[in-house]
Protein backbone atom coordinates (compact mmCIF):
# COMPACT_ATOMS: atom_id res chain seq x y z
CA UNK A 1 0.00 0.00 0.00
CA UNK A 2 2.60 2.52 1.07
CA UNK A 3 4.72 2.44 -2.07
CA UNK A 4 1.80 2.52 -4.47
CA UNK A 5 2.16 5.18 -7.14
CA UNK A 6 -0.16 8.11 -7.71
CA UNK A 7 -2.03 6.58 -10.65
CA UNK A 8 -2.82 3.46 -8.68
CA UNK A 9 -4.12 5.42 -5.71
CA UNK A 10 -6.11 7.88 -7.83
CA UNK A 11 -7.63 5.08 -9.89
CA UNK A 12 -8.65 3.18 -6.80
CA UNK A 13 -10.15 6.29 -5.23
CA UNK A 14 -12.26 7.05 -8.30
CA UNK A 15 -13.39 3.47 -8.75
CA UNK A 16 -14.24 2.88 -5.12
CA UNK A 17 -16.19 6.14 -5.21
CA UNK A 18 -18.33 4.78 -8.03
CA UNK A 19 -18.52 1.34 -6.49
CA UNK A 20 -20.01 2.96 -3.40
CA UNK A 21 -22.37 5.05 -5.54
CA UNK A 22 -23.37 2.03 -7.55
CA UNK A 23 -23.51 -0.76 -5.02
CA UNK A 24 -24.08 0.86 -1.65
CA UNK A 25 -26.33 3.87 -2.22
CA UNK A 26 -29.06 2.00 -4.12
CA UNK A 27 -29.65 0.04 -0.93
CA UNK A 28 -30.61 3.25 0.83
CA UNK A 29 -33.43 4.01 -1.62
CA UNK A 30 -36.60 2.02 -1.19
CA UNK A 31 -38.72 3.30 -4.09
CA UNK A 32 -38.56 2.35 -7.75
CA UNK A 33 -36.13 4.82 -9.35
CA UNK A 34 -37.45 4.38 -12.88
CA UNK A 35 -41.04 5.17 -11.88
CA UNK A 36 -42.33 8.32 -13.52
CA UNK A 37 -43.74 11.44 -11.84
CA UNK A 38 -42.67 10.31 -8.39
CA UNK A 39 -41.58 13.89 -7.74
CA UNK A 40 -42.31 17.27 -9.26
CA UNK A 41 -40.44 17.61 -12.54
CA UNK A 42 -37.28 19.62 -13.33
CA UNK A 43 -36.37 20.60 -9.76
CA UNK A 44 -33.02 22.26 -9.18
CA UNK A 45 -30.48 20.34 -7.07
CA UNK A 46 -31.35 20.67 -3.40
CA UNK A 47 -30.99 18.88 -0.08
CA UNK A 48 -33.72 16.32 -0.72
CA UNK A 49 -32.74 15.94 -4.38
CA UNK A 50 -28.95 16.12 -4.58
CA UNK A 51 -28.99 16.33 -8.37
CA UNK A 52 -32.52 17.61 -8.75
CA UNK A 53 -35.23 15.81 -10.71
CA UNK A 54 -35.75 15.34 -14.45
CA UNK A 55 -38.63 15.96 -16.82
CA UNK A 56 -40.03 12.52 -15.99
CA UNK A 57 -40.22 13.35 -12.30
CA UNK A 58 -37.45 10.94 -11.35
CA UNK A 59 -34.77 11.80 -8.82
CA UNK A 60 -31.61 12.07 -10.91
CA UNK A 61 -29.25 11.10 -8.10
CA UNK A 62 -30.94 7.82 -7.22
CA UNK A 63 -31.51 7.08 -10.88
CA UNK A 64 -27.83 7.67 -11.52
CA UNK A 65 -26.75 5.36 -8.72
CA UNK A 66 -28.89 2.52 -10.02
CA UNK A 67 -27.79 3.18 -13.59
CA UNK A 68 -24.15 3.01 -12.51
CA UNK A 69 -24.78 -0.32 -10.86
CA UNK A 70 -26.45 -1.89 -13.88
CA UNK A 71 -23.90 -0.54 -16.33
CA UNK A 72 -21.06 -1.66 -14.08
CA UNK A 73 -22.51 -5.15 -13.95
CA UNK A 74 -22.94 -5.29 -17.72
CA UNK A 75 -19.40 -4.01 -18.22
CA UNK A 76 -17.74 -6.37 -15.78
CA UNK A 77 -19.80 -9.33 -16.92
CA UNK A 78 -18.97 -8.82 -20.58
CA UNK A 79 -15.36 -7.77 -20.07
CA UNK A 80 -14.56 -10.63 -17.75
CA UNK A 81 -15.96 -13.38 -19.90
CA UNK A 82 -14.89 -12.09 -23.29
CA UNK A 83 -11.35 -11.43 -22.07
CA UNK A 84 -11.11 -14.79 -20.32
CA UNK A 85 -12.52 -16.75 -23.24
CA UNK A 86 -10.44 -14.71 -25.64
CA UNK A 87 -7.12 -15.23 -23.88
CA UNK A 88 -7.61 -18.93 -23.32
CA UNK A 89 -8.81 -19.51 -26.86
CA UNK A 90 -5.97 -17.43 -28.25
CA UNK A 91 -3.27 -19.13 -26.20
CA UNK A 92 -4.51 -22.62 -26.86
CA UNK A 93 -4.85 -21.90 -30.56
CA UNK A 94 -1.43 -20.29 -30.73
CA UNK A 95 0.40 -22.99 -28.82
CA UNK A 96 -1.37 -26.17 -29.80
CA UNK A 97 -1.70 -25.17 -33.44
CA UNK A 98 -3.13 -27.67 -35.89
CA UNK A 99 -6.80 -28.57 -35.86
CA UNK A 100 -7.51 -26.84 -32.55
CA UNK A 101 -6.03 -23.65 -33.91
CA UNK A 102 -8.04 -23.91 -37.10
CA UNK A 103 -11.36 -24.49 -35.38
CA UNK A 104 -10.90 -21.77 -32.76
CA UNK A 105 -9.81 -19.27 -35.35
CA UNK A 106 -12.66 -20.24 -37.65
CA UNK A 107 -15.11 -19.39 -34.91
CA UNK A 108 -13.25 -16.26 -33.97
CA UNK A 109 -13.06 -15.08 -37.56
CA UNK A 110 -16.71 -15.75 -38.19
CA UNK A 111 -17.62 -13.56 -35.26
CA UNK A 112 -15.11 -10.92 -36.24
CA UNK A 113 -16.40 -10.64 -39.77
CA UNK A 114 -20.05 -10.30 -38.78
CA UNK A 115 -20.63 -6.62 -37.97
CA UNK A 116 -21.86 -6.44 -34.39
CA UNK A 117 -23.96 -3.29 -34.29
CA UNK A 118 -26.41 -4.35 -37.01
CA UNK A 119 -26.79 -7.73 -35.35
CA UNK A 120 -27.35 -6.06 -32.00
CA UNK A 121 -29.99 -3.86 -33.57
CA UNK A 122 -31.53 -6.92 -35.21
CA UNK A 123 -31.62 -8.62 -31.82
CA UNK A 124 -33.06 -5.41 -30.50
CA UNK A 125 -36.02 -5.60 -32.83
CA UNK A 126 -36.15 -9.39 -32.52
CA UNK A 127 -36.61 -9.18 -28.77
CA UNK A 128 -39.12 -6.41 -29.32
CA UNK A 129 -37.01 -3.74 -27.68
CA UNK A 130 -37.06 -5.51 -24.32
CA UNK A 131 -33.74 -7.21 -24.91
CA UNK A 132 -32.90 -8.38 -21.42
CA UNK A 133 -29.58 -6.80 -20.47
CA UNK A 134 -28.35 -10.34 -19.95
CA UNK A 135 -29.02 -11.15 -23.59
CA UNK A 136 -27.33 -7.97 -24.76
CA UNK A 137 -24.39 -8.89 -22.55
CA UNK A 138 -24.27 -12.34 -24.11
CA UNK A 139 -24.25 -10.96 -27.61
CA UNK A 140 -21.55 -8.49 -26.66
CA UNK A 141 -19.41 -11.32 -25.30
CA UNK A 142 -19.93 -13.28 -28.48
CA UNK A 143 -18.64 -10.33 -30.47
CA UNK A 144 -15.82 -9.29 -28.14
CA UNK A 145 -13.91 -12.46 -27.37
CA UNK A 146 -12.41 -12.91 -30.84
CA UNK A 147 -10.34 -9.73 -30.63
CA UNK A 148 -8.27 -10.69 -27.61
CA UNK A 149 -8.21 -14.21 -29.00
CA UNK A 150 -6.54 -13.11 -32.22
CA UNK A 151 -4.21 -10.71 -30.45
CA UNK A 152 -3.14 -13.24 -27.85
CA UNK A 153 -2.76 -15.88 -30.53
CA UNK A 154 -0.31 -13.76 -32.50
CA UNK A 155 1.57 -13.10 -29.25
CA UNK A 156 1.58 -16.80 -28.48
CA UNK A 157 2.86 -17.53 -31.96
CA UNK A 158 5.88 -15.31 -31.40
CA UNK A 159 6.28 -16.60 -27.86
CA UNK A 160 6.36 -20.22 -28.79
CA UNK A 161 9.43 -19.50 -30.91
CA UNK A 162 11.30 -18.45 -27.77
CA UNK A 163 13.62 -21.14 -26.48
CA UNK A 164 12.46 -21.55 -22.95
CA UNK A 165 8.92 -22.24 -24.11
CA UNK A 166 10.06 -25.01 -26.42
CA UNK A 167 12.38 -26.17 -23.65
CA UNK A 168 9.42 -26.28 -21.30
CA UNK A 169 7.39 -28.09 -23.92
CA UNK A 170 10.10 -30.66 -24.62
CA UNK A 171 10.61 -31.10 -20.92
CA UNK A 172 7.05 -32.39 -21.02
CA UNK A 173 5.29 -29.69 -19.05
CA UNK A 174 1.52 -29.64 -19.44
CA UNK A 175 0.16 -26.94 -21.74
CA UNK A 176 -1.83 -25.44 -18.89
CA UNK A 177 1.29 -25.06 -16.77
CA UNK A 178 3.12 -23.45 -19.67
CA UNK A 179 0.22 -21.12 -20.23
CA UNK A 180 0.05 -20.04 -16.64
CA UNK A 181 3.73 -20.02 -15.74
CA UNK A 182 5.61 -19.09 -18.87
CA UNK A 183 3.25 -17.22 -21.14
CA UNK A 184 0.56 -15.49 -19.14
CA UNK A 185 3.04 -12.97 -17.71
CA UNK A 186 3.69 -11.77 -21.24
CA UNK A 187 0.05 -11.25 -22.18
CA UNK A 188 -0.97 -10.05 -18.71
CA UNK A 189 -0.58 -6.35 -19.27
CA UNK A 190 -2.18 -6.46 -22.67
CA UNK A 191 -5.05 -8.49 -21.24
CA UNK A 192 -5.67 -6.05 -18.44
CA UNK A 193 -5.72 -3.31 -21.03
CA UNK A 194 -8.17 -5.30 -23.11
CA UNK A 195 -10.30 -6.11 -20.08
CA UNK A 196 -10.63 -2.47 -19.16
CA UNK A 197 -11.31 -1.49 -22.72
CA UNK A 198 -13.96 -4.16 -23.03
CA UNK A 199 -15.72 -2.86 -19.93
CA UNK A 200 -15.96 0.43 -21.74
CA UNK A 201 -16.94 -1.17 -25.05
CA UNK A 202 -19.73 -2.99 -23.26
CA UNK A 203 -20.98 0.08 -21.44
CA UNK A 204 -20.83 2.24 -24.53
CA UNK A 205 -22.29 -0.39 -26.85
CA UNK A 206 -25.23 -0.63 -24.50
CA UNK A 207 -25.64 3.12 -24.45
CA UNK A 208 -25.14 3.17 -28.20
CA UNK A 209 -28.05 0.78 -28.54
CA UNK A 210 -30.01 2.77 -26.00
CA UNK A 211 -29.54 6.02 -27.91
CA UNK A 212 -31.38 4.52 -30.86
CA UNK A 213 -33.95 3.02 -28.50
CA UNK A 214 -32.88 -0.59 -28.95
CA UNK A 215 -31.83 -1.34 -25.39
CA UNK A 216 -34.42 -2.03 -22.69
CA UNK A 217 -35.47 1.51 -22.07
CA UNK A 218 -37.51 0.82 -18.97
CA UNK A 219 -34.41 -0.39 -17.10
CA UNK A 220 -32.02 2.06 -15.50
CA UNK A 221 -28.64 2.04 -17.19
CA UNK A 222 -26.31 4.89 -18.01
CA UNK A 223 -27.29 4.33 -21.62
CA UNK A 224 -31.04 4.53 -21.14
CA UNK A 225 -30.54 7.52 -18.88
CA UNK A 226 -28.85 9.32 -21.76
CA UNK A 227 -31.59 8.05 -24.07
CA UNK A 228 -34.41 9.55 -22.02
CA UNK A 229 -32.49 12.77 -21.51
CA UNK A 230 -32.04 12.96 -25.26
CA UNK A 231 -35.70 12.20 -25.81
CA UNK A 232 -36.45 15.30 -23.77
CA UNK A 233 -33.86 17.49 -25.46
CA UNK A 234 -31.86 17.83 -22.26
CA UNK A 235 -28.86 19.08 -24.17
CA UNK A 236 -30.48 21.97 -26.02
CA UNK A 237 -32.75 22.60 -23.07
CA UNK A 238 -29.72 22.97 -20.85
CA UNK A 239 -30.76 20.23 -18.43
CA UNK A 240 -27.08 19.54 -17.98
CA UNK A 241 -27.28 17.51 -14.81
CA UNK A 242 -29.64 15.00 -16.37
CA UNK A 243 -27.68 14.39 -19.57
CA UNK A 244 -24.31 15.27 -18.09
CA UNK A 245 -24.22 13.04 -15.03
CA UNK A 246 -24.31 9.70 -16.87
CA UNK A 247 -21.75 10.91 -19.41
CA UNK A 248 -19.41 12.14 -16.70
CA UNK A 249 -19.97 8.89 -14.84
CA UNK A 250 -18.98 6.81 -17.86
CA UNK A 251 -15.86 8.89 -18.43
CA UNK A 252 -14.74 8.85 -14.81
CA UNK A 253 -15.35 5.12 -14.49
CA UNK A 254 -13.17 4.55 -17.52
CA UNK A 255 -10.48 6.96 -16.38
CA UNK A 256 -10.49 5.27 -13.00
CA UNK A 257 -10.07 1.87 -14.62
CA UNK A 258 -7.38 3.22 -16.90
CA UNK A 259 -5.35 4.77 -14.09
CA UNK A 260 -5.70 1.52 -12.20
CA UNK A 261 -4.35 -0.40 -15.19
CA UNK A 262 -1.34 1.80 -15.89
CA UNK A 263 -0.63 2.28 -12.22
CA UNK A 264 -0.61 -1.46 -11.73
CA UNK A 265 1.83 -1.82 -14.62
CA UNK A 266 4.22 0.74 -13.16
CA UNK A 267 3.91 -0.94 -9.81
CA UNK A 268 4.71 -4.39 -11.09
CA UNK A 269 7.51 -2.97 -13.24
CA UNK A 270 9.03 -1.51 -10.09
CA UNK A 271 8.59 -4.83 -8.35
CA UNK A 272 10.51 -6.55 -11.14
CA UNK A 273 13.27 -4.03 -10.36
CA UNK A 274 13.29 -2.83 -13.93
Amino acid at each position, binding site marked *: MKNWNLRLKLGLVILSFFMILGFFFPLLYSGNVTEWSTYPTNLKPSMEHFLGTNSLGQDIFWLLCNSIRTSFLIGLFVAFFSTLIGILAGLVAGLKGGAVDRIVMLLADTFI*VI*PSLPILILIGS*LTKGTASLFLIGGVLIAFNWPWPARQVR*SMALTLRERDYISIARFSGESTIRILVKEIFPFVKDWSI*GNFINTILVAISSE*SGLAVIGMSSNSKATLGTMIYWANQHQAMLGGKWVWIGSPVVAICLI*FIGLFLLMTGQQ*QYSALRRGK
Partner: protein
Amino acid sequence: MKFLKFLSSRLLTYIFVILLGMTIVFFVPRFMPSDPVESMLGQMMSKSSTMDAAAIEAMRKTLNENFGLEGTLGEQYFGYMKRVIFTQDFGPSLTMYPVPVKELIADSLPWTVCLLGISTVISWLIGNGIGLLAGIRKDKAYSKILEGIAICIYPIPYYIFALTLIMLFAYIFPVFPLSANFDVSGFTWENLKTVIWNSVLPALSLILTGTGWWVISMTTLSRNTNEEDFVAFARMKGLNERKVISRYVLPNTILPQITMLALQMGTIFNGSLITEILFNYPGLGSLIYRGILQADYNLIMGTITTSIFAVATATLVIDLLYPFIDPRVRYN
Protein backbone atom coordinates in the same frame (compact mmCIF):
# COMPACT_ATOMS: atom_id res chain seq x y z
CA MET B 1 5.28 -26.24 -50.02
CA LYS B 2 4.58 -25.29 -46.47
CA PHE B 3 3.22 -22.03 -47.80
CA LEU B 4 0.89 -23.72 -50.28
CA LYS B 5 -0.41 -26.01 -47.58
CA PHE B 6 -1.01 -23.04 -45.34
CA LEU B 7 -2.57 -21.04 -48.14
CA SER B 8 -5.02 -23.76 -49.09
CA SER B 9 -6.15 -24.38 -45.53
CA ARG B 10 -6.41 -20.66 -44.88
CA LEU B 11 -8.45 -20.11 -48.02
CA LEU B 12 -10.72 -22.91 -46.90
CA THR B 13 -11.28 -21.13 -43.61
CA TYR B 14 -11.86 -17.90 -45.49
CA ILE B 15 -14.59 -19.37 -47.65
CA PHE B 16 -16.13 -21.18 -44.75
CA VAL B 17 -16.21 -18.05 -42.63
CA ILE B 18 -17.98 -16.10 -45.35
CA LEU B 19 -20.52 -18.84 -45.99
CA LEU B 20 -21.21 -19.22 -42.29
CA GLY B 21 -21.58 -15.47 -41.90
CA MET B 22 -23.92 -15.23 -44.89
CA THR B 23 -26.03 -18.06 -43.57
CA ILE B 24 -26.45 -16.37 -40.21
CA VAL B 25 -27.26 -13.12 -41.93
CA PHE B 26 -29.83 -14.87 -44.06
CA PHE B 27 -31.67 -16.45 -41.19
CA VAL B 28 -31.54 -13.89 -38.40
CA PRO B 29 -33.68 -11.29 -40.18
CA ARG B 30 -36.23 -13.94 -41.03
CA PHE B 31 -36.77 -14.51 -37.33
CA MET B 32 -37.74 -10.87 -37.09
CA PRO B 33 -41.36 -10.64 -35.95
CA SER B 34 -42.25 -8.61 -39.01
CA ASP B 35 -42.07 -8.73 -42.74
CA PRO B 36 -41.41 -5.93 -45.21
CA VAL B 37 -44.83 -6.04 -46.81
CA GLU B 38 -46.55 -5.62 -43.47
CA SER B 39 -44.29 -2.74 -42.50
CA MET B 40 -45.00 -1.02 -45.79
CA LEU B 41 -48.75 -1.39 -45.40
CA GLY B 42 -48.47 -0.41 -41.76
CA GLN B 43 -46.81 2.84 -42.62
CA MET B 44 -49.42 3.61 -45.25
CA MET B 45 -52.16 3.04 -42.70
CA SER B 46 -50.43 5.01 -39.97
CA LYS B 47 -50.66 8.00 -42.31
CA SER B 48 -54.27 7.51 -43.37
CA SER B 49 -56.74 4.97 -42.10
CA THR B 50 -59.21 5.62 -44.87
CA MET B 51 -57.91 2.76 -46.97
CA ASP B 52 -60.55 0.09 -47.40
CA ALA B 53 -59.46 -2.97 -45.48
CA ALA B 54 -60.27 -5.53 -48.17
CA ALA B 55 -58.22 -3.51 -50.60
CA ILE B 56 -55.27 -3.71 -48.23
CA GLU B 57 -55.57 -7.48 -48.29
CA ALA B 58 -55.33 -7.38 -52.08
CA MET B 59 -52.40 -5.01 -51.90
CA ARG B 60 -50.54 -7.38 -49.61
CA LYS B 61 -50.89 -10.18 -52.14
CA THR B 62 -49.51 -8.08 -54.99
CA LEU B 63 -46.56 -6.93 -52.93
CA ASN B 64 -45.70 -10.44 -51.77
CA GLU B 65 -45.60 -11.58 -55.36
CA ASN B 66 -43.45 -8.65 -56.43
CA PHE B 67 -40.95 -9.25 -53.64
CA GLY B 68 -40.65 -12.95 -54.40
CA LEU B 69 -41.31 -13.87 -50.80
CA GLU B 70 -43.15 -17.07 -51.65
CA GLY B 71 -41.57 -20.48 -51.33
CA THR B 72 -40.25 -22.30 -48.29
CA LEU B 73 -37.39 -20.85 -46.30
CA GLY B 74 -35.13 -23.54 -47.74
CA GLU B 75 -35.93 -22.65 -51.32
CA GLN B 76 -35.43 -18.97 -50.57
CA TYR B 77 -32.12 -19.74 -48.84
CA PHE B 78 -30.55 -21.77 -51.61
CA GLY B 79 -31.90 -19.42 -54.22
CA TYR B 80 -30.30 -16.56 -52.36
CA MET B 81 -26.95 -18.27 -51.90
CA LYS B 82 -26.85 -19.26 -55.56
CA ARG B 83 -27.69 -15.74 -56.66
CA VAL B 84 -25.12 -14.06 -54.44
CA ILE B 85 -22.27 -16.49 -55.06
CA PHE B 86 -22.63 -16.84 -58.80
CA THR B 87 -24.03 -13.49 -59.84
CA GLN B 88 -23.15 -11.32 -56.81
CA ASP B 89 -26.73 -10.11 -57.05
CA PHE B 90 -28.66 -9.37 -53.86
CA GLY B 91 -31.90 -8.77 -55.70
CA PRO B 92 -34.04 -5.66 -55.45
CA SER B 93 -34.46 -3.67 -52.29
CA LEU B 94 -37.91 -4.36 -50.92
CA THR B 95 -38.58 -0.97 -49.40
CA MET B 96 -37.02 0.83 -52.35
CA TYR B 97 -38.44 -1.57 -54.89
CA PRO B 98 -37.33 -2.11 -57.61
CA VAL B 99 -33.89 -0.51 -57.09
CA PRO B 100 -31.29 -3.29 -56.93
CA VAL B 101 -29.55 -3.51 -53.55
CA LYS B 102 -26.26 -3.63 -55.47
CA GLU B 103 -26.89 -0.13 -56.78
CA LEU B 104 -27.77 1.25 -53.36
CA ILE B 105 -24.58 -0.18 -51.93
CA ALA B 106 -22.51 1.06 -54.86
CA ASP B 107 -23.85 4.56 -54.27
CA SER B 108 -23.10 4.64 -50.56
CA LEU B 109 -19.85 2.71 -50.57
CA PRO B 110 -17.48 5.42 -51.84
CA TRP B 111 -18.77 7.86 -49.21
CA THR B 112 -18.32 5.47 -46.35
CA VAL B 113 -14.96 4.17 -47.49
CA CYS B 114 -13.71 7.70 -48.03
CA LEU B 115 -14.82 9.12 -44.70
CA LEU B 116 -14.11 6.12 -42.49
CA GLY B 117 -10.99 4.98 -44.31
CA ILE B 118 -9.32 8.33 -43.96
CA SER B 119 -10.40 9.04 -40.41
CA THR B 120 -9.35 5.54 -39.35
CA VAL B 121 -5.89 5.96 -40.83
CA ILE B 122 -5.46 9.40 -39.34
CA SER B 123 -6.54 8.32 -35.88
CA TRP B 124 -4.28 5.27 -36.19
CA LEU B 125 -1.29 7.46 -36.97
CA ILE B 126 -2.01 10.05 -34.30
CA GLY B 127 -2.98 7.43 -31.76
CA ASN B 128 0.14 5.33 -32.24
CA GLY B 129 2.31 8.44 -32.28
CA ILE B 130 0.96 9.58 -28.96
CA GLY B 131 0.94 6.05 -27.61
CA LEU B 132 4.59 5.53 -28.54
CA LEU B 133 5.57 8.80 -26.92
CA ALA B 134 3.61 8.02 -23.79
CA GLY B 135 5.09 4.54 -23.74
CA ILE B 136 8.78 5.40 -24.02
CA ARG B 137 8.72 8.85 -22.47
CA LYS B 138 6.36 8.04 -19.64
CA ASP B 139 7.99 10.61 -17.34
CA LYS B 140 7.78 13.57 -19.74
CA ALA B 141 5.02 16.10 -19.09
CA TYR B 142 3.87 16.50 -22.68
CA SER B 143 3.40 12.79 -23.21
CA LYS B 144 1.31 12.63 -20.05
CA ILE B 145 -0.82 15.55 -21.24
CA LEU B 146 -1.35 14.10 -24.73
CA GLU B 147 -2.20 10.72 -23.26
CA GLY B 148 -4.49 12.39 -20.74
CA ILE B 149 -6.47 14.21 -23.41
CA ALA B 150 -6.92 11.05 -25.46
CA ILE B 151 -7.98 9.12 -22.38
CA CYS B 152 -10.56 11.73 -21.47
CA ILE B 153 -12.13 11.99 -24.93
CA TYR B 154 -12.17 8.29 -25.70
CA PRO B 155 -14.84 7.12 -23.24
CA ILE B 156 -17.39 9.86 -24.05
CA PRO B 157 -20.39 8.14 -25.71
CA TYR B 158 -19.99 8.86 -29.40
CA TYR B 159 -23.51 10.18 -29.90
CA ILE B 160 -23.07 12.79 -27.19
CA PHE B 161 -19.59 13.69 -28.36
CA ALA B 162 -20.67 14.20 -31.96
CA LEU B 163 -23.72 16.15 -30.88
CA THR B 164 -21.54 18.42 -28.78
CA LEU B 165 -19.30 19.03 -31.77
CA ILE B 166 -22.32 19.95 -33.85
CA MET B 167 -23.67 22.28 -31.18
CA LEU B 168 -20.27 23.91 -30.81
CA PHE B 169 -19.16 24.33 -34.40
CA ALA B 170 -22.42 24.48 -36.33
CA TYR B 171 -24.76 26.21 -33.89
CA ILE B 172 -23.07 28.26 -31.18
CA PHE B 173 -20.15 29.15 -33.45
CA PRO B 174 -21.60 28.47 -36.90
CA VAL B 175 -18.32 27.62 -38.61
CA PHE B 176 -19.56 24.48 -40.35
CA PRO B 177 -22.94 23.85 -41.99
CA LEU B 178 -25.60 22.58 -39.60
CA SER B 179 -27.19 20.31 -42.18
CA ALA B 180 -24.41 18.94 -44.34
CA ASN B 181 -24.98 19.12 -48.06
CA PHE B 182 -23.40 16.31 -50.03
CA ASP B 183 -25.06 17.03 -53.32
CA VAL B 184 -22.61 16.42 -56.14
CA SER B 185 -23.98 17.07 -59.60
CA GLY B 186 -20.85 16.40 -61.60
CA PHE B 187 -17.31 16.37 -60.26
CA THR B 188 -16.01 19.91 -60.03
CA TRP B 189 -13.48 21.55 -57.76
CA GLU B 190 -16.40 23.52 -56.29
CA ASN B 191 -18.28 20.34 -55.35
CA LEU B 192 -15.13 18.71 -54.03
CA LYS B 193 -14.56 21.68 -51.75
CA THR B 194 -18.17 21.55 -50.58
CA VAL B 195 -17.94 17.85 -49.85
CA ILE B 196 -14.69 18.16 -47.94
CA TRP B 197 -15.96 21.20 -46.08
CA ASN B 198 -19.06 19.25 -45.08
CA SER B 199 -17.05 16.18 -44.12
CA VAL B 200 -14.84 17.99 -41.65
CA LEU B 201 -17.11 17.66 -38.63
CA PRO B 202 -17.99 13.99 -39.05
CA ALA B 203 -14.37 13.15 -39.76
CA LEU B 204 -13.24 15.14 -36.74
CA SER B 205 -15.69 13.37 -34.47
CA LEU B 206 -14.53 9.98 -35.72
CA ILE B 207 -10.84 10.79 -35.47
CA LEU B 208 -10.99 12.25 -31.99
CA THR B 209 -12.96 9.35 -30.57
CA GLY B 210 -11.03 6.79 -32.59
CA THR B 211 -7.59 7.92 -31.46
CA GLY B 212 -8.13 6.92 -27.85
CA TRP B 213 -7.94 3.17 -28.23
CA TRP B 214 -4.79 3.34 -30.34
CA VAL B 215 -3.17 5.52 -27.71
CA ILE B 216 -4.05 3.10 -24.95
CA SER B 217 -2.98 -0.09 -26.70
CA MET B 218 0.17 1.47 -28.14
CA THR B 219 1.20 2.85 -24.77
CA THR B 220 0.96 -0.55 -23.16
CA LEU B 221 2.71 -2.34 -26.00
CA SER B 222 5.58 0.10 -26.32
CA ARG B 223 6.04 0.20 -22.56
CA ASN B 224 6.46 -3.56 -22.47
CA THR B 225 8.76 -3.67 -25.48
CA ASN B 226 10.79 -0.87 -23.97
CA GLU B 227 11.49 -3.17 -21.06
CA GLU B 228 12.55 -6.10 -23.24
CA ASP B 229 16.16 -7.29 -22.98
CA PHE B 230 17.04 -6.61 -26.58
CA VAL B 231 16.05 -2.97 -26.18
CA ALA B 232 18.12 -2.68 -23.02
CA PHE B 233 21.00 -4.35 -24.85
CA ALA B 234 20.63 -2.02 -27.81
CA ARG B 235 21.01 0.84 -25.36
CA MET B 236 24.08 -0.90 -23.90
CA LYS B 237 25.52 -0.95 -27.36
CA GLY B 238 25.40 2.80 -26.99
CA LEU B 239 22.93 3.34 -29.83
CA ASN B 240 21.33 6.74 -29.51
CA GLU B 241 17.72 6.88 -28.38
CA ARG B 242 16.31 7.64 -31.80
CA LYS B 243 17.91 4.52 -33.32
CA VAL B 244 16.77 2.39 -30.40
CA ILE B 245 13.18 3.49 -30.88
CA SER B 246 13.09 3.49 -34.66
CA ARG B 247 14.99 0.19 -35.05
CA TYR B 248 14.04 -1.78 -31.96
CA VAL B 249 10.95 -0.51 -30.11
CA LEU B 250 8.75 0.70 -32.97
CA PRO B 251 9.11 -2.29 -35.30
CA ASN B 252 8.35 -4.66 -32.47
CA THR B 253 5.35 -2.76 -31.11
CA ILE B 254 3.76 -1.81 -34.40
CA LEU B 255 3.06 -5.38 -35.50
CA PRO B 256 -0.10 -6.01 -33.42
CA GLN B 257 -1.24 -2.50 -34.24
CA ILE B 258 -0.96 -3.23 -37.95
CA THR B 259 -3.09 -6.31 -37.48
CA MET B 260 -5.69 -4.22 -35.70
CA LEU B 261 -5.58 -1.53 -38.38
CA ALA B 262 -6.18 -4.08 -41.10
CA LEU B 263 -9.19 -5.44 -39.22
CA GLN B 264 -10.45 -1.90 -38.62
CA MET B 265 -10.11 -1.25 -42.32
CA GLY B 266 -12.35 -4.21 -42.88
CA THR B 267 -14.95 -3.07 -40.39
CA ILE B 268 -15.38 0.33 -42.02
CA PHE B 269 -17.61 -1.46 -44.45
CA ASN B 270 -20.33 -1.48 -41.82
CA GLY B 271 -20.35 2.24 -42.27
CA SER B 272 -20.80 4.24 -39.13
CA LEU B 273 -24.45 4.31 -38.27
CA ILE B 274 -24.68 7.08 -35.70
CA THR B 275 -22.26 9.34 -37.55
CA GLU B 276 -24.27 9.02 -40.71
CA ILE B 277 -27.56 9.63 -38.94
CA LEU B 278 -26.24 12.63 -37.04
CA PHE B 279 -24.43 14.28 -39.91
CA ASN B 280 -26.81 13.35 -42.75
CA TYR B 281 -23.91 11.46 -44.26
CA PRO B 282 -24.94 9.27 -47.21
CA GLY B 283 -23.17 6.05 -46.23
CA LEU B 284 -23.65 2.33 -45.72
CA GLY B 285 -24.46 2.58 -42.02
CA SER B 286 -27.73 4.39 -42.51
CA LEU B 287 -28.51 1.97 -45.34
CA ILE B 288 -28.13 -1.01 -43.01
CA TYR B 289 -30.17 0.77 -40.36
CA ARG B 290 -32.97 1.51 -42.79
CA GLY B 291 -32.89 -2.10 -43.93
CA ILE B 292 -33.32 -3.35 -40.39
CA LEU B 293 -36.01 -0.88 -39.39
CA GLN B 294 -38.10 -1.79 -42.41
CA ALA B 295 -37.24 -5.49 -42.43
CA ASP B 296 -35.81 -5.16 -45.93
CA TYR B 297 -34.24 -8.63 -46.12
CA ASN B 298 -32.35 -8.11 -49.34
CA LEU B 299 -30.93 -4.83 -48.15
CA ILE B 300 -29.87 -6.23 -44.78
CA MET B 301 -28.25 -9.24 -46.40
CA GLY B 302 -26.63 -7.21 -49.13
CA THR B 303 -25.07 -4.64 -46.84
CA ILE B 304 -23.98 -7.03 -44.13
CA THR B 305 -22.64 -9.58 -46.60
CA THR B 306 -20.58 -6.84 -48.19
CA SER B 307 -19.03 -5.97 -44.87
CA ILE B 308 -18.53 -9.63 -43.97
CA PHE B 309 -16.71 -10.11 -47.24
CA ALA B 310 -14.55 -7.04 -46.62
CA VAL B 311 -13.55 -7.98 -43.09
CA ALA B 312 -12.92 -11.61 -44.01
CA THR B 313 -10.64 -10.51 -46.82
CA ALA B 314 -8.81 -8.14 -44.51
CA THR B 315 -8.12 -10.90 -42.00
CA LEU B 316 -7.03 -13.25 -44.78
CA VAL B 317 -4.56 -10.68 -46.04
CA ILE B 318 -3.13 -10.18 -42.56
CA ASP B 319 -2.62 -13.88 -42.04
CA LEU B 320 -0.88 -14.20 -45.38
CA LEU B 321 1.34 -11.20 -44.84
CA TYR B 322 2.16 -11.69 -41.17
CA PRO B 323 5.10 -14.07 -41.67
CA PHE B 324 6.66 -11.47 -43.94
CA ILE B 325 6.33 -8.75 -41.33
CA ASP B 326 7.28 -10.92 -38.38
CA PRO B 327 9.98 -13.56 -39.06
CA ARG B 328 9.13 -15.35 -35.82
CA VAL B 329 5.78 -16.42 -37.26
CA ARG B 330 5.91 -19.29 -39.67
CA TYR B 331 3.16 -20.60 -41.93
CA ASN B 332 1.58 -23.55 -40.19
